[in-house]
């Protein structure tokens, strides 16, 4: 075991390149490729000597550096140069380096911003899974007060009509009501007291109530209430022959 020299760890090949450029105080826009390529490769060699894994990303850029270097060494064809604009083989790499450099600086800005932000303590909040009711941003939709008023007149008109009709309606008898309940219970859609009574008049409510009591007495149905003042459920007794 020899002596250990601490080897800088870089975030990636661009990080390493930028570091070499900064160290040598080179203008990033005019990189001496041969020199930088040599230093870059020397670093990779050091890494290998220390059994550090040199990732493929570093090798890709090494290859790029060498390619640029050789392109720049090639004598330029003067005929060619007359017609096409000379393209610097370093262009793409420099653009990449500049872009990376910018984000590296932003990363530092973020560190500073975070420091400022954490100097201000927010209140601690506790997560709550409580479901929230929605807010209606426009609770009446596009209805107007005139619509509301005319709707009210219509409703009252209907009430007035039906009030007259009601006078001549034949009233349902207890046995008819019991029969109606049997049918509705068999259909099975309405099984609670509230549903069966419905929104009808007082007479109908009383008759329905009496009909239910009668059906219980005849052992055709049972009534279940799970808690005081809770909903009352009606159930047909199984195996009971219901005469329709």
């Amino acid at each position: 075991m020899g002596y250990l020299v601490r080897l800088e760890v870089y975030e990636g090949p661009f990080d390493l390149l930028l570091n070499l450029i900064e160290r040598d105080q080179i203008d990033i826009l005019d990189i001496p490729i041969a020199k930088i390529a040599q230093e870059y490769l020397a670093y990779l060699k050091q890494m290998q000597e220390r059994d550090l894994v040199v990732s493929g990303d570093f090798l890709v850029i090494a290859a790029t550096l060498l390619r640029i270097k050789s392109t720049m060494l090639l004598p330029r064809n003067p005929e060619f140069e007359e017609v096409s604009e000379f393209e610097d083989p370093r262009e793409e790499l420099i653009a990449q380096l500049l872009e990376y450099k910018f984000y590296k600086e932003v990363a530092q800005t973020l560190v500073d911003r975070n420091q400022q932000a954490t100097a201000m303590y927010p209140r601690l909040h506790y997560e709550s899974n409580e479901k929230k009711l929605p807010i209606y941003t426009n609770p009446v939709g596009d209805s107007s007060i005139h619509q509301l008023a005319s709707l009210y007149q219509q409703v009252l008109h209907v009430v007035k009509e039906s009030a007259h009709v009601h006078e001549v309606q034949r009233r349902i008898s207890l046995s008819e009501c019991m029969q109606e309940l049997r049918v509705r219970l068999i259909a099975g859609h309405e099984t609670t007291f509230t549903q069966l009574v419905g929104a009808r008049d007082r007479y109908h409510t009383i008759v329905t109530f009496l009909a239910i009591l009668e059906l219980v007495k005849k052992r055709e149905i049972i009534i279940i209430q799970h808690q005081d003042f809770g909903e009352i459920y009606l159930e047909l007794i199984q195996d009971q022959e219901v005469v329709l």
Partner: protein
Amino acid sequence: MKLEEAQKVIEGLIFAAPYPISSEELGTILEFEPIIVERLIERIREQFANSGLMIRTVAGGYQFVTRPELVSWIDKLGRPLISAPLSLAGLETLAIIAYQQPLTKSHVEQIRGVRSDSAISTLLDRELIMEFGRKDGPGRPILYGTTQKFLVHFGLRSLDDLPDRPKVPRIGEISE
């Protein structure tokens, strides 16, 4: 440290502490006697007299909370926003409640001739109607009436601005 400065620090500590912080703890941090801390908290409370926030004493410590009278507003936080139109059933029910308030659900149903539970719960959700106490009598049913929001959204200053009620007798008078 000036008292003013100490007050600021106490406010910050009470606000940021993850639990109700006691005057002893505050005193330890500030190197003050707890009694001084308590006096400073009294002064802070005076300064927050007109704020939506207040310091309450709870579980042996102090804690910033919103004023209890704001609870109905705070409840609205984080609720999803919905802008769906109101159904005809809802509007019809609203019309009846607007003109006949306060009235019970069964009264509405008597007029409309159909069950109105869902219409009424929609109107409650939309905060266009609210409970106005209970009616005397069997079952003490809930009475409903329209809200401030109802007036705002129909552009009415008060219920007197409702277009004239048609000259039709009230439901109770019909059967006579």
